[in-house]
């Protein structure tokens, strides 16, 4: 039997199975030797800044960090596509020994000349923290010579977790925000924070706001542009999705410019509707409220019959959710409920204590909640809970398939828009298509699970939680 490592037991919780009200331990570094699904600080920074399409993104370090992140996301741009290229200083032994500043300087200068970006981000990866390159100084020099912002992002992988990378990215973004700070504000205007325009989602959301009569000043960072970010302090409200990554920036803007922020999610019918309503409520404008009501009503009416159709087929199925940020997990639990699907396992890579408390609240009794899980644990839980569907990212997909479970990719690499009302339909279609596929009849794991006694699996669960 797969056992949960002793040092990880506190990061797993089953609602209703335990007496007392212990919190879930989280925000810890991953255990050495556990196959965490997490990445690193650099990953956090890269994910947030990546969609800024007219900026140069230069990864300073050996080639791997840049090679593995080349064009891996579905973030679309309506104009320049500089973000889809992968630039690395590709340090060699010589530079590791004697320092990489010269190479960084040369690389930056050439690239800026060749691609004429509006700004440049320089990501310092693990090794830079060791060899002691003064990235800041090089950036400053190039900035002075080339006349564009050249912003160092301190994202050495070992200096924390993905969350620290979000922080570094927010700091980098804030430098751009400040550049345009102090200009007069726009009425009825917002910034969209924390949507990355995967498969054009930002465009969909922008369109909702347009219909509501609200001006979108900047999207940070979906279909992002440097100049737009510079303008962002002129908006009246920051609307933050993916709050794990972007709340920091919203807070900085609040402190500096008194710009309030709201956390929202655009996944699922309720959350999308609530997001739009909460923005409308904020502005307290009758016109806007009326238009919002109209929009929500017509969109819901449009998609509802089709959602019901899927629900009929999917009612009673069970799902596991394992995603990067916990806010997405909340929305998914609710969205699945719309389809009559119960969440049996839910977890995230980066949730904090409040997030997990909230998850406990919204989940049914028996649901397993995990922080920073690994393939063995996940597969074990999926077996016991006999789930029909896993929602996760590329690294989780083969786990689902080997376990005979359907899969829905809800990560940054997906090429299907899952946000907003239209996104809910896409989500339903994808889940439906995967669950209903006739191929599962041949899956040995599925066949085996069909014959497995339920009580047996319950016993295993019990055994796992007893120390």
């Amino acid at each position, binding site marked *: 039997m797969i056992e949960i490592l002793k040092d990880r037991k506190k990061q797993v919780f089953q609602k209703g199975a335990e007496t007392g009200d212990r919190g879930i331990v989280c925000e810890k570094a991953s255990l050495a030797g556990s196959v965490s699904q997490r990445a690193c600080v650099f990953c956090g920074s890269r994910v947030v800044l990546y969609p800024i399409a007219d900026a140069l993104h230069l990864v300073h370090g050996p080639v*791997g960090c840049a090679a593995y992140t080349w064009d891996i996301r579905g973030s679309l741009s309506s104009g320049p596509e500089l973000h889809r290229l992968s630039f690395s200083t590709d340090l060699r032994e010589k530079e590791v020994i004697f320092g990489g500043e010269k190479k960084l300087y040369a690389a930056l200068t050439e690239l800026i000349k060749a691609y004429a970006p509006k700004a440049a981000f320089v990501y310092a990866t693990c090794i830079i923290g*060791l060899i002691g390159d003064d990235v800041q100084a090089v950036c400053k020099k190039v900035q002075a010579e080339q006349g564009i912002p050249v912003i160092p992002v301190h994202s050495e992988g070992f200096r924390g977790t993905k969350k620290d990378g979000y922080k570094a990215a927010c700091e980098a973004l804030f430098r751009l925000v400040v550049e345009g700070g102090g200009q007069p504000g726009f009425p009825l205007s917002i910034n969209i924070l924390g949507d990355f325009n995967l498969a054009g989602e930002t465009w969909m959301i922008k369109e909702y706001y347009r219909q509501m009569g609200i001006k979108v000043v900047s999207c940070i960072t979906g279909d992002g542009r440097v100049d737009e970010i510079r303008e962002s302090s002129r908006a009246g409200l920051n609307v933050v999705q993916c709050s794990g990554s972007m709340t920091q920036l919203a807070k900085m803007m609040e402190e500096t410019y008194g710009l309030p922020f709201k956390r929202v999610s655009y996944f699922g019918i309720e959350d999308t509707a609530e997001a739009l309503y909460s923005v409308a409520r904020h502005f307290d404008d009758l016109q806007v409220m009326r238009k919002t009501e109209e929009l929500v009503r017509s969109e819901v009416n449009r998609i509802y019959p089709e959602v019901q159709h899927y629900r009929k087929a999917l009612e009673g199925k069970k799902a596991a959710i394992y995603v990067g940020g916990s806010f997405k997990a909340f929305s998914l639990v609710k969205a699945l409920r719309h389809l009559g699907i119960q969440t049996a396992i839910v977890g995230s890579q980066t949730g904090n204590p409040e997030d997990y408390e909230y998850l406990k609240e919204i989940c049914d009794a028996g649901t397993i909640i995990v922080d920073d899980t690994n393939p063995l644990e996940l597969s074990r839980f999926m077996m016991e809970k006999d789930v029909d569907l896993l929602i996760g990212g590329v690294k989780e997909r083969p786990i689902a398939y080997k376990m005979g479970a359907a899969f829905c990719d809800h990560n940054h690499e997906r090429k299907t828009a899952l946000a907003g009302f239209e996104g809910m339909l896409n989500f339903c279609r994808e889940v439906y298509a995967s669950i209903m596929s006739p191929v599962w009849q041949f899956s040995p794991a599925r066949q085996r699970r069909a014959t497995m006694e339920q009580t047996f699996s319950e016993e295993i669960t019990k055994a796992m939680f007893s120390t």
Partner: protein
Amino acid sequence: MIKTETKEEFNLEITSRNFTSTRNACKLCAPLGASIAFRGIEGCIPLIHGSQGCSTYIRRYVISHFKEPIDIASSNFSEQSAIFGGGDNLKTAIDNLRRQYQPAAIGISTTCLSETIGDDVELYIDQYRKSNKDESLPVIIHASTPSYRGTHLEGFQEALRATVETLARGGPHTDRLNLIPGFLSAEDLRHLKEILSDFGIGHTLLPDYSETLDGESWEEYQKLSAGGTTIEAIRAMGRAQATIQFGKSLKGLNTAATFLEGKFGVQSLTLGIPVGIRETDLFFKALKEWSGLEIPQKYQQERGRLVDAYIDGHKYVYGKRAIIYGEADFVAALASWLDEIGIVPALCATGACTGKFKETVLSGLKNCPEEPLICEDTDFADMLDTCRTMGIDMVMGSSKGYFISRKLGVPLVRVGFPIHDRIGGQRILHVGYRGTQQLFDRVVNALIEAGQERSAVGYSYI
């Protein structure tokens, strides 16, 4: 016709890189190669010694190609370990892996980070063995793989050498053959085993991820997917009679094969990757001479059919111009094959820096009517800049060249690693007469299809 001996006739200086930075790298980093090699050993779990990100990125990258669960652990460096050394992390990692996976072996590769701080991994392993000496420990293999020194392919070879250095034992020689085929597809490995079995040659293939990275659907979740070269078999490699390794540029390098030769007197033979009739002939000839057995009828027939197909298709391919890229020896193999069917490998590129690339590619060209451009230490952006005016008809290599083919409006024939935008990358067969047959059919059809698409008429009969 230009002969390869007269290299001067080619105007082949390696193009200087246009940029200091690497733009869209045509290479990956060393622990990736090492981890794949380690997954070709039965019951072996790869452990990357460094911070978490490298291991997660590498997993994601590899999983997207093989579409299999591939667990690669990390010793998960923190700031502390970066300053004081990663010894404790490494030991904890080994402990945790033993508990969770009960592996037969742990394959440790190092990242740039642990290499730069000068972590003495050998010492840590030694200490670990000592403090756990009463327990039965998994085999622990350590490959030193700083990526600033080499690419994923060097990492792959390094892991194999470390493996035989750790495990192979001497003794009376048997009549077995070791085959070290390099970084090929799972289907290639299966085919090579089939060939050796059909010959009746007792053999050890290292590594063998034909099952571990391309397995069946499971009844129950497997901690480490089944398959792989057994530890026992690797031990016995020191007693085999000979080793064949594929990859012309490996000659003279300190590889697993040369180690076995130097230490245990296992005679070694370096061949090109057997793609195409000429290189496959050499492979079969070597097997025949070495074993004294006849080439099984089946393969003679496959060869015959391939020749027949070459003739059927020759007009569609002759004089066409291709870009090929990827690992140095793989590109050399493709170049030699294109050369034998009359396609000009107009641009041959690798991101690696072997210093021998030009020479290796040239040694396989016998018919090429013009001067191909051969670039090492290059990247995809440079390739695109270079080839725009070269009159290219076809791109051949991993899916990372897709944007080149798209920009040029010519087909991409997907081979090698990684294939991220199609399924079945692990099942592409490249080697042997059979693999060549499949490549040939695909290339011809890709060119026919491109012509068909361009045509205003839309013939349905070619």
